[in-house]
């Protein structure tokens, strides 16, 4: 994958970037919720 120049416009891929952020945040919250379920179940 080619290097991304810091001088490249941050507006260029904003939709796909936004989608990645949302998916990553959702996956992280699901992981934390799963963790809470497991700890509540085994205690």
């Amino acid at each position: 994958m080619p290097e991304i120049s810091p001088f490249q416009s941050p507006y260029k891929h904003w939709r796909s970037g936004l989608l990645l952020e949302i998916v990553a945040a959702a996956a992280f919250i699901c992981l934390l919720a799963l963790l809470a379920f497991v700890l509540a179940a085994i205690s």
Partner: protein
Amino acid sequence: MWVQRTRDDVRAIARYLGMLVIGIGILMAVPLVTALLLQEHAPALDYFAGAGLAIGFGSVLMLAAPKRVPLNASNGLIVTALGWLFAALFAAVPLALSGHYGSYLDALFESMSSLTTSGLTLVQDLDHLANAHNMWRHLMHLVGGQGIVVAVLSFALAHGGGAVSLYLAEGRDERIMPNVVNTARFIWFVTAVYVLLGTTALSALNLVRGMGAVRATLHAFWATVATFDTGGFGPQSQNALYYHSGWFEWITTMLMLAGTFNFSLHADIWRGDRRELFKNTEVRTLALNIFVLSVLVSAGLAATRAFGSGLEVARKGIYHVLSANTGTGHQTLYAVQWMRDYGGLGFVAVVLAMAFGGMASSTAGGIKALRVGLIGKGVVRWVKAALAPPSAVIVARFHHMKSRILQPEMLASALMIATLYIVTYVTGALIGVACGYGVPESVFESVSAAANVGLSTGITSPSMPAALKVTYIVQMWAGRLEFIALFALVAALLQPVIGRRAR
């Protein structure tokens, strides 16, 4: 050597402060229009008075300093420190006139809390507060989250030379684009995108759950702004608990995480550099931090059995870790439950989450994940160096937009600011204890104020001593500016004394 400020320096500071105060007055047009549209006549008068006072005072300051003088970095620090204080002083006027605050000091507490995106509140009878006042409380979150000085002045300073000094002085040490004004505009763009998405999602949720269209939209906008800007205010006294909705909590946790993202990281990902999200030291530190603290809170809550099922543990545990770590301060507990139901382990984990804070150059407060990550890497390097042969050169690397070598001055800076936060947390807690509150509550509330979080065990109330109100105001102010601008102001005020001694 202490810098002597000349008459021109004072004129420059006065001029920029004047512009800022006028900007605050102009911003009051938003709650004023809200009041007029919703036929809230008494609040409309409050904003007429507030805006008139701010614009009048700001104009006098600008007239007193008519000469167009450039703003250097040193004066930028003074403008920033005073700017936040002046903004809070004038923003408090319509709140003080509303009749919902016990005194002007309470209204000032509210405006400082709002601008610094802390979320601690002294409002009385919030459930019957006019929409215009709620609009103002949340609008201050929005403007403060972006960095009030740059936010207000980014339009006025489009071609001015003072923007760089002010941007750096506000605790934002990264330039996303070569031009500071373009950087400020990109920050507004990211905010607009998330606020639009959040408002749409929460409006739909509120409508489905039976709210009227206007109320649903206003609540959705306020909740989104308070969450993305990691503020924590709400239009109801029960805060997020009012909604009793898993979907509300899901959407707001997403917004909390988005709000605590470093704006440079948003820019890098939106440029197309997706790998940065997984390689960045700050992201990894924050994720690890939240994960470990979530384990502690979940284990603590599971042990107390106060919340029953796994779903309840997630909703009462994980939600508050995220709310604390991102500096948001939304809570789905009654204040008394922190001491009664949460248990020692969960309580300590939430305090640690608040103390660590979110990412640098975001709307979050606290020590910040990047500094915690750098200190961690510094410790590892120190241990490696102790175990290695004397001739070995041990280098620590970290990734933040690019691969970097951890320099001693970076580590020193991170350690110094972390130490200042800890000193502030402890000082506020000691004052709380001196005012007669218990140690755990005092520590919790002090950390919440200085890290600009807003979670509360109930100490923050209109009946608390005035000394503690002033303490928390200073903590919120210092924490938001990450100390340096405030120290520069104190040094400037003491300069006649310390300058004479130095001679």
